[in-house]
């Protein structure tokens, strides 16, 4: 069935490509939003990311200056093979310049190679793995929003320092989970804590009771959830059912999105500590953007940090293109330009694109509000701390990116 769908998608893409014959005008840009459009990450990225990309194009004002910017989107279905097929199709046939979003670290790393091979631009917002700007960095990749290093350091460090020195991991069994567990373990041991055990569960698991029982039996003070999306919401919900938090163990949702909190409900989610780099209710600018965004969303949801990252990343990309005076259709050249301009956008504030492709911006420690504290349908977070951009992400001297060794 999936194959049929992807065949249909490819067919559609081919038809589209015939319509969009590449022109010699160098003020044309084609952006492809490659995301999980229907699976477990569709709410935190998916159609909302496409909307964010549209808004970035509109807000850039480039169209009024004679630019032609096209947008297409695709569904990678959380499968690396489908993701790379679409990416190749986009570069070879559709003449796409830039691929954005790409949640799911497994798919993101696979697409990373294709973008480098085709010398495109890769603005990743949805994937977590810090490998994108370390061992697997490329001159074509810019990683916005978050990564496993940031999550591990912000949340992990705060919890260990608060006395949570023994950990048990529930880890999603693919690239992302492994990277998050690895990065968090490094933080725990560096701060004097200990990992007493862990279990790897398959992606998209409905029932966590077996794993939770093992976590309970481990007597670890903190149960680290190195998973995302539906897996995280199910773990948290079922942990409440098994009396894990009441029994004195604490849950650490290493990666939690706004849409996850909505799905769990404040009743169960209250008091959880976690890190994000964007929240719709941070300041006037984020509120103004989120209002425009949610009016266009079918569900009325405000943007998640991944969707905000798509907007911010493209906004910066357009700035670089404008500075270049035209689109050279040379990914490495555009990304090099992006690295020379400081980032500044209404959603993430000021920051920079580092030499390894990592974008630095502030990260925020949040706590989920009690139901009584919430004043609206999406009023979920209390800000409890801010980690400045230059401390939140991998320091350049610790990055293993080969681009830095020149």
């Amino acid at each position, binding site marked *: 069935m999936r194959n049929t769908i992807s065949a249909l998608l490819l067919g559609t893409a081919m038809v589209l490509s015939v319509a969009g014959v590449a022109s010699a005008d160098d003020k044309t840009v084609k952006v492809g939003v490659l995301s999980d459009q229907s699976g477990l990450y569709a709410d935190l990225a998916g159609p909302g990311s496409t909307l964010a990309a549209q808004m970035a194009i509109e807000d850039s004002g480039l169209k009024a200056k004679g630019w032609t910017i096209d947008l297409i989107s695709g569904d990678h279905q959380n499968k690396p093979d489908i993701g790379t097929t679409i990416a190749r199709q986009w570069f070879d046939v559709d003449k796409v310049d830039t691929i954005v979003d790409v949640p799911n670290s497994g798919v993101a790393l696979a697409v990373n190679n294709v973008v480098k091979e085709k010398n495109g631009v890769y603005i990743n917002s949805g994937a977590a793995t810090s490998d994108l700007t370390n061992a697997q960095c490329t001159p074509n990749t810019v990683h916005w929003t978050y990564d496993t290093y940031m999550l591990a350091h912000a949340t992990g460090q705060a919890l260990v320092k608060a006395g949570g020195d023994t950990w048990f991991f529930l880890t999603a069994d693919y690239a992302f989970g492994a990277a998050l567990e690895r990065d968090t373990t490094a933080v725990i041991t560096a701060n004097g804590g200990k990992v007493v055990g862990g279990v790897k*569960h398959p992606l998209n698991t409905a*029932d966590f009771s077996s794993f939770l029982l093992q976590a309970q039996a481990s007597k670890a003070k903190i149960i680290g959830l190195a998973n995302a999306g539906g897996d995280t919401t199910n773990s948290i919900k079922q942990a409440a059912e098994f009396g894990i938090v009441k029994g004195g163990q604490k849950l650490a949702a290493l990666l939690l999105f706004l849409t996850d909190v909505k*799905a769990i409900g404040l009743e169960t989610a209250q008091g959880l500590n976690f890190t994000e780099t964007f929240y719709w209710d941070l300041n006037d600018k984020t509120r103004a953007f989120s209002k425009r965004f949610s009016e266009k969303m079918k569900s009325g949801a405000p943007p998640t940090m991944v969707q905000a990252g798509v907007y911010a990343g493209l906004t910066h990309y357009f700035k670089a293109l404008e500075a270049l005076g035209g689109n050279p259709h040379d990914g490495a050249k555009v990304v090099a330009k992006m690295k020379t301009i400081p980032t500044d956008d209404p959603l993430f504030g000021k920051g920079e694109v580092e030499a390894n492709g990592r974008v630095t911006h502030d990260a925020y420690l949040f706590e989920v509000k009690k139901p009584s504290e919430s004043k609206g349908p999406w009023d979920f977070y209390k800000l409890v701390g801010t980690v400045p951009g230059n401390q939140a992400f991998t320091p350049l001297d610790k990055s293993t990116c080969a681009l830095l060794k020149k």
Partner: protein
Amino acid sequence: MQALYAQLLVGLINGSFYALLSLGLAVIFGMLNIINFAHGALYMMGAFVAYFLLNLGGINYWWALLIAPILVGIFGMILERTMLQWLAGLDHLYGLLLTFGIALIVQGVFQNYFGSSGLPYSIPDQLKGGVNLGFMFLPIYRGWVVIFSLVVCLATWFLIEKTQLGAYLRAATENPTLVRAFGINVPRMITLTYGLGVGLAALAGVLSAPINQVRPLMGADLIIVVFAVVVIGGMGSIMGSIITGFALGVIEGLTKYFYPEASNTVVFVLMVVVLLVKPTGLTGRAA
């Protein structure tokens, strides 16, 4: 050892869902000869109906256990009347494709309106909390699921295998023309049977709403495993599907303990083995 007991019990809980769902599939296959791929979507609808009843109508879990299966059952009977009945006597493939299409449409519609991450549904107050069994902390709600689904499974088995109505049903499957000659309205019985199978799926949906998220894809994720359960148990065998459902839940639970990475695949490995050794399934009759 304690951990082992705990995993066995957890396996039984998951087995309850497998049993309820595979039972519905077995009833529908046994009586209508339709491989009902829409089962997962109907299970999901059961959970959504419970959510709507609570959030729009203020109707609690207990009533939802009754109302949701009836409403979804009626939806199923409409499907049967308007579409499935025309496929009677055709190859299984037609029913499979039609119900698969229905499942995709229903899931697509729900996903369009409710997204993919799901909606919260909390455990009813009476079943909150848990008991410490010494070897594990058993949430009361999970215990309730095991007992309730066991009762429902056995009642369904009794209805079909031991009552007059069940006898008519089985006879109508064997030889519809002859049974009709006795003055029994066979098409209506078939419609009701489909409604019953669908109702069982919706009931499982309501039971699972407080444990899992109420998500459009909750059924799609589960249905493949349930089909494997039915294949292992033997298509159309009522008791076989109940026993296999519970047994596979336990086996899956043990896998989660000993080698969690394989917990997604163990059921399918078993299915392959069973198909190689006994293609009709463990308790199945030869077709």
